Every structure is written in C-alpha cells, then in structure tokens.
C-alpha cells in the first residue's frame, strides 16, 4: 500500500513571486489603500518582472509602485489613486508619457469581470454603458441585443487573470485561508478574486496549525484546493492596512508620495525600500518598531 504525505504549500516570498511570469495578467488583492499584498509586490519588483497587466477593481499603492518600477504594460481597472492622499504620481506620469496603457472599467463591472471568470463565462452582460466614453476607448467591449428581450446590452470581457495574489490574516501550510466574518469590501473582493483563477497565491500575516483552522471552519473562505502557494509575511501589507490587525502607515505613504514626485527621487526610494532589501524583515527594520507598533490594532474577536 502506498501512503503519501499531505503536501505543504508553504513557500518563500521569492519562490511565490517566481510563479509570476513576464507578460502575465495579474490580479492584486486589496482595494484603494487597503490590504494590498505589498511585500509580494516588492518581490515582483526585485525580480524585475516585465510587461505585466494588472487587472483590478480599485487600485492604489500596488499599481503605482509597479508603474514606477517599470514592471507594467497595461492596467485594467476603475480607479488608481491614493484616496485621501490624492492622485497616484507614478501611474499618472507613466500614462501621461504614453508608457503605460490604461483601460478604464466601471467599478461594479470591474468586480463583475471576476465573477464572470469564476463562472467561466465568456462575457458578462452590462446594460448601462450607453453614451459612456468607456465604450469609445475599449474595443474589447462589444454591443449586442439581448436574444430574449431585445434589450440593448454590452458584452464585457471577463477578468481572466493568469495569477491572483491576495494578503490575508491567517492560513495553514496547506493553503486553507481564513477571512474574518466582520469583513468589508476589500476582504470580500479578495475572496471573489481567489475564485476567479487557478493560480492563487496568498500571503498571510501568520501561519497557524491546521488543528486551529479546523476549529474555525466557517471562516475558511479559501480552502486549500483553491490555493497554489501560501507565504507567511507578517506586516505583509505595509504601508496599507489589514483590517483588525494594523492600520495604514500614513507617514510612510506621505514619504512615498514625496519621493514619487520625480523619477530620480523615486529611484532612490526603490533603492532603499525594495532593491536594497534582501528579506522582508529588513524592510520592517527600516520602517522601525515604534512606527509599526503605533499602527497595531487588536480586535476583541474575529
């Protein structure tokens, strides 16, 4: 009788990022300035990925730094910006220079595109796009009349990412990933994204035992068979927030935005915080213990 051991999916950040190929369509979890897998994004930059397409919903820090590091060819999303901090400087510069292709989608439709991929639909129907210039600039959206009612409609292409990367709080080595019940839009969209693709990478704040996970099975929104690789990265979303774990690092974001005012100073930022960093803990040392502790949240319960 052949008895095999269950396979661990726990890998290093380096090995996980190596799963992304140049030219891939990548969906990055999180929303605006919340809960992006930033440590993973930094590793993509260190590995000098090229010609990536980010397919997203509401993007911020993730797309801006990838744009500034020259990793992107195209972005399909409804928003790129820093919310209360303002516009995304690297993204803006790249688009204005004609170096980065942007394809704008409405916000709800950007979410629906991932649902289309989950359902394996060849398109998602939209009925509210008439007159919008989004149609003028996007040849991938095709008009049709509903075959049942004759209603004017548009076929919107699914998101169809090659790889999805999200950042969550807890998981086990087999890739069971837990999402708190008090979740909000960023966490809910991460779950939607994780069901839209067959290559799903999850970075987690902490790896816990499967025994512990099994006592909270109702919180496992991404079971192990949906996960390709899991990586333990504490503070892995910094400087964005993780709900119930830590808040966004506003001071660091302001420092980033100051550096991003010119390509030269931004290059120095990348040298210091990305290229010049071997391990994620080295990055955290640069941010400093006091700064990190000041951001810490401690939820009463999940």
């Amino acid at each position, binding site marked *: 009788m052949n008895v095999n051991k269950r396979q661990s999916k726990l890998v290093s950040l380096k090995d996980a990022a190596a799963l992304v190929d140049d030219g891939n369509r990548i969906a990055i979890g999180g929303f605006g300035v919340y809960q992006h897998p930033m440590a993973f994004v930094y590793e993509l930059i260190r590995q000098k990925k090229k010609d990536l397409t980010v397919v997203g919903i509401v993007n911020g820090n993730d797309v801006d730094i990838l744009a500034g590091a020259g990793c992107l060819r195209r972005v399909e*999303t409804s928003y790129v910006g820093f*919310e*209360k901090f303002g516009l*995304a400087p690297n993204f*803006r510069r790249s688009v204005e220079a004609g170096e980065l292709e942007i394809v704008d989608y*409405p*916000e709800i439709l950007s979410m629906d595109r991932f649902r289309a991929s989950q359902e394996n639909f060849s398109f998602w129907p939209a009925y509210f796009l008439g007159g919008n210039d989004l149609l003028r600039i996007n040849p991938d959206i095709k008009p049709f009349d509903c075959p049942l009612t004759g209603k004017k409609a548009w076929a919107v292409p699914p998101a169809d990412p090659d790889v999805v990367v999200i950042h969550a709080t807890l998981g086990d080595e087999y890739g069971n990933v837990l999402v708190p019940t008090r979740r909000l839009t960023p966490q809910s969209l991460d779950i939607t994204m994780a069901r839209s693709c067959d290559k799903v990478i999850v970075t987690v704040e902490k790896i816990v035992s499967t025994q512990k996970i099994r006592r909270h099975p109702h919180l496992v929104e991404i079971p192990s068979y949906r996960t390709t690789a899991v990586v333990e990265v504490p503070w892995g979303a910094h400087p964005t927030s993780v709900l119930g774990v830590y808040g966004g690092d506003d001071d660091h974001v302001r420092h980033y935005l100051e550096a991003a005012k010119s390509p030269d100073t931004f290059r120095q930022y990348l040298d210091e915080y990305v290229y010049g960093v071997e391990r994620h803990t080295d990055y955290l040392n640069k941010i400093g213990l006091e700064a990190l502790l000041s951001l810490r*949240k401690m939820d009463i319960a999940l």
Partner: protein
Amino acid sequence: MREANLYEIITVALAHDLKDGELGFTGLTTGDGAARFATSIPLAAAQLARLTHAPNLTIMLAGWVHNPNLRQLTRLPNSEFDEELRDLECEAQSRGFPNHPWAIKRGDIDFGFASGAQVDKYGNINSVCIGDYRNPKVRLIGPVLQPEHMTLFGREYVMMAQHDARRFVEKVDFISGVGYPGGQAGRRELGIEWGGPELVFTPKCIFDFDKEAGRMRVKSIHPGIGIDDLRASTGFDLGPLDDVPLTRLPEPEELELLRNEVDPYGLLLPTT
C-alpha cells in the same frame, strides 16, 4: 440666531429634495472642500430629512454603513474601510461585493452624490482625464462608480465644491458619467432606463435640468452672488438669468434642528 451660512443653505435645499422611504448612497470623499460638498452636506441633509418629513429614509455612509449614528463621531472619517467605520453604531452594514444588501442593478438606490473634475452643460461628468484620452494632459483617478451612479441610481446630485470655468465646461474631455445627451429621449436611445443628474450644487448656485432638451439651467442663485460672477465662472452659456430666484433660506426651525440635533458638534458643517 446666527444667519445661515452657505453650507447650511445648501444642506436644507438638498434635504427638501429627498423623499420619505428612499435609499441614498454617499461615498467617502476626501479633501476639505470636496468632502464637505460630497459627503458632509449629503449626510447632514439626509439626517435633517429623517428628523422632519422623511423618517423612513435610509442613508448610507461610504456606501455601506446604513443610518450611522453620526453623533458618535468626533471627526469625519477619512478611511472607507477601517475599524472606525466598522465599529460605528448603525442600522445595517454591508460586507461588500457581491453580497451587498441592496440590488444596485434593480434600481434599489434612489439617489447618490457625485463630483468630477469637469461637468458640462449636458450634465455629463468626467473624472478620467483632462485632454486627449491617449495623450492626456492630466491623468485622473478613473471612472470609479460614476458610470453606475449616473445610470443605475434613481437620480444623482452632482456636488461641486468649486465653481469655475475650468470645471463647468461646454463639453467634458471624457464622459465617465452620462448626463442628458439628446435629452431624456437620447438617454432612452442609449439603452439607459432611468436615472441621471437631478441637481448640481455649487458655492454659487443650484442647477437643475431641462430634461427634454438635455440642458443644465440655473435654478437658483445663492445670496450674495452676482449674475456677472456666475456667468464668468461658467464655461457655457447660461441663457437669461433675470428671473432666476435667490436660493431659499432655511426656516429658523430647520436651522435649529440642523445645529442642535443633526450636527451639534459642528462635525459636518462649518459653524461660522
């Protein structure tokens, strides 16, 4: 009693337009002036309406916090999705897409609030770019939820914190939210079944629409604003303005409610 300031005047005018039983959607806009117009004024107006003629109105903060207890707040939140809003006392919460409690495409949301870098005389709005799309002078944030606001919501209030000829233009550089091209008939031809801009609030005036013609027009001018100033601040022809009334001032009872019940700590509206 102190005279009503601009924000109070706009808040009360907006409150009058909200109806009992409706569901309203406010986003969390940031930046001082913009937040005041697109978030604070709508929240204050909805709460005033709830305390007067519309007790069954539901208003959402940040698109997901239903009927929040704003008196619990010591400052206006500046993050859409953090613990502060999650733990704010309210009537219902949404945990996010696709499990929102409302059915947006069925028309559940009666009214919402948008703003843009540009708005034109047809009521189109733009938050995508200034200049040519492929070669923009300024690349902005993107369409976000504007396409949905302007077609799926029952009606839209466009909240413009600044009124000048750069923002109020003949034709927007990019239509990311559709107004009335070709009027109501034009919208129907485009397959749009309902919705569209209803009123535009600015520091100088309130616009409404001749929906058949598909044109924005001045509904009322705020006290202290001259007609020449209004024309110079608007990049399209406003037509005759001699018969346009002044924006109605709040009743003393409304001001009292607004100051003492809706916003006792001056969180939403300036107190001077």
